[in-house]
């Protein structure tokens, strides 16, 4: 099963709040879990990524939490800012060619 399920589809957060986006997968062959950020009219850009042997990774205000046994991972954006307003995609990588299976995306709006 190649699906990656992402929730919520949309999220509104006040400036300074915490944004949380969740993803779940079935295929245990996935070996790398990146999050991409996409602004309107632009291509996705890598935000942060984690390997399945790590439970948490933090880069600045962005944190990935990874639960291998539950096959779930999540993105936390601390102190959310209006500039964080974008669509966020979780993804899972498979194969030596680093092919990506994407979640459906979450449109985040951070209100000033």
């Amino acid at each position, binding site marked *: 099963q190649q699906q990656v399920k992402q929730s919520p589809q949309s999220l509104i957060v006040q400036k300074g709040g915490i944004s949380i986006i969740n993803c779940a997968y079935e295929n245990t062959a996935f070996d790398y879990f990146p999050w991409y950020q996409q602004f309107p009219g632009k*291509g996705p850009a890598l935000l942060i990524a984690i*390997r399945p042997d790590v439970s948490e990774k933090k880069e600045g205000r962005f944190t990935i939490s990874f639960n291998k046994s539950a096959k779930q991972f999540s993105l936390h954006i601390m102190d959310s800012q209006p500039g964080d307003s974008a669509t966020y995609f979780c993804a899972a990588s498979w194969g*030596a060619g680093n092919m990506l299976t994407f979640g459906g995306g979450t449109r985040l709006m951070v209100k000033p």
Partner: protein
Amino acid sequence: NAGVTQTPKFRILKIGQSMTLQCTQDMNHNYMYWYRQDPGMGLKLIYYSVGAGITDKGEVPNGYNVSRSTTEDFPLRLELAAPSQTSVYFCASSLGGMDTEAFFGQGTRLTVV
């Protein structure tokens, strides 16, 4: 450093027409990919290539063809365009292997009418 460049940015096709979406990268990446993104949806893999002369199907290859004659270029061909191919198409490249970042182009917005 231009990264991944896609042309054209926008295109309107009539049903049954054909076109080629161009993609070139200047990062000397071996791996290149084509994804499509439908409104409100995630990206789906159409085709990928692990090096010049080597291509393989992704999740949604029907109605498309690709070629990879050089490391830099990975064009996507649409034959007999259909309304179901209305989408935004993204080309990407990476070094390949685990933990490597995929770099995406700006996308081509295609409408088939």
